[in-house]
C-alpha cells in the first residue's frame, strides 16, 4: 500500500477526510482486504491507547486556583486602582529625595575641593623656590668672598633639609598618653 493511501486510510478512520474523499475511500475498502486490515489496525491502536490513565486533580485544586487568582487581583488592585496613585507618588518622592541628595553631595564636594585648587604651592616647596634658570654667565666660578659666605651657611642648609623633612619626625616613638 502506498504511503499516501495509508494516510487517507488513517484520516478516514479518524474522520478527518473531506466527504467526497471519504466516500471514495469507503468504496475502495469494500474491495481491498489489505486496506481493510490496515484500517482495523488503526482502530485497534486507538482502542489500545485508552489504556493510559492519569490521576484526577487533587481535592484542593480549586482552592489553590482561587487563592492564586485572589492574590493576583490584590496585586493588580494595588497597582491599577487607588494604590497606583500612592505607588506613583511614593516613587516620585523617592526619586526627588535621591536627586536632592545627589545635588547636596555634589555641592559639598565642589566646596571642599575649590580652596585646595586655588591655593598656591605647598609651604615646603615655597620655602625653597625654584632656582632661577642659569645662564652660561652665571655658571662662571663664584668670586672667593661669595664662595666663603656660602661655605659658612652650609650647615644651615643641611639643617634646613632636616627641618623640612617632617616625615623623619613621624618615625619617633609616640608619646604615651598615660
Amino acid at each position, binding site marked *: 500500500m502506498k504511503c499516501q493511501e*495509508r*494516510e487517507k486510510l*488513517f*484520516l478516514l478512520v*479518524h474522520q*478527518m477526510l473531506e466527504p467526497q474523499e471519504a466516500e471514495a475511500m469507503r468504496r475502495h475498502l469494500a474491495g481491498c482486504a489489505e486496506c481493510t486490515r490496515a484500517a482495523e*489496525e*488503526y482502530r*485497534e*491502536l*486507538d*482502542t*489500545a*491507547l485508552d*489504556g*493510559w*490513565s*492519569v*490521576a*484526577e*486533580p*487533587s481535592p484542593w*485544586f*480549586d482552592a*489553590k*486556583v*482561587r487563592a*492564586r*487568582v485572589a492574590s*493576583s487581583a490584590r496585586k*493588580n488592585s494595588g497597582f491599577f486602582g487607588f494604590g497606583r496613585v500612592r505607588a506613583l507618588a511614593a516613587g516620585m518622592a523617592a526619586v526627588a529625595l535621591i536627586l536632592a541628595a545627589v545635588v547636596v553631595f555634589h555641592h559639598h564636594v565642589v566646596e571642599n575641593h575649590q580652596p585646595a585648587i586655588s591655593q598656591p604651592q605647598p609651604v615646603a616647596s615655597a620655602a625653597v623656590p625654584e632656582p632661577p634658570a642659569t645662564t652660561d654667565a652665571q655658571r662662571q666660578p663664584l668670586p672667593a668672598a661669595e664662595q666663603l659666605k656660602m661655605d659658612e651657611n652650609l650647615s644651615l642648609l643641611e639643617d634646613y633639609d632636616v627641618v623640612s623633612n617632617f616625615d623623619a619626625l613621624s618615625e619617633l616613638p609616640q608619646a604615651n598618653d598615660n
Partner: protein
Amino acid sequence: MVMDSDLDLMLRVRQGDADSFGELLRRYRTPLVKYFCRLVRDQALAEDLAQEAFLRVYKARHRYRPDARFTTWLYRIATNLALNAIRDGRGRQRLDVNGSGEDGEASFEFVDPGISVEQQLIETDRGRMIREAIEALPENQRAAVILHKYQDIDYRQIGKILKVSESAVKSLLFRAYETLRARLEPLVRGGQL
C-alpha cells in the same frame, strides 16, 4: 436548564463575575490537569501548571476575543506552559503512584484501585508502554496526539492551538500514529500483552 456556553461564561468573567470563572474552572480543571499530566509526567507539576493556566485566563480576561473558542484559547495557553516546562527540564520528574517500572524508575500511570492486583499490574504495564511510546514522539506530534486522543479536540482546533495548518495537523497525526502503531504492536495485535 440550558447550560451557559463557555463564551457566555468568559464574557461574564470579563465583567468581573467570579461565579462564571468558577464554572469554567469546574468544567475544565479535570481535562486540563490530565492534559498536563500526560505532557509533563509529574502530577504536582501538572497541577501547578493547570493552576497557572487558569490564572493566566483570569489575568488575560480582558484580551479574550469572542471570535475564538474558549477551549482553543485555554489549550493554547496550556500547551505553551507545558512545552516551556518540558524545555526547562521541569517535566522530567516522575511521581510514584503505583510502584516502580521495569527500569527501576517510579511509574506515573494511574490505575483504578477497584480492580484486581493482577489486572492492575497489566494495566500499569500497558500504561507505561503507551506513555513511553507517546513520550518518545517529537514535541509537536506528542501534543497533537494527546489533544486528539485524550482531550477529544477536533483537528481543526488542534491546528489553531499549535498554530499550524489543518493539513499540517493531519500529517503530524498520521506520522505520530504510524510510529505508535509500530512501537505498540504487541498491544495492537491481539489487544493484550
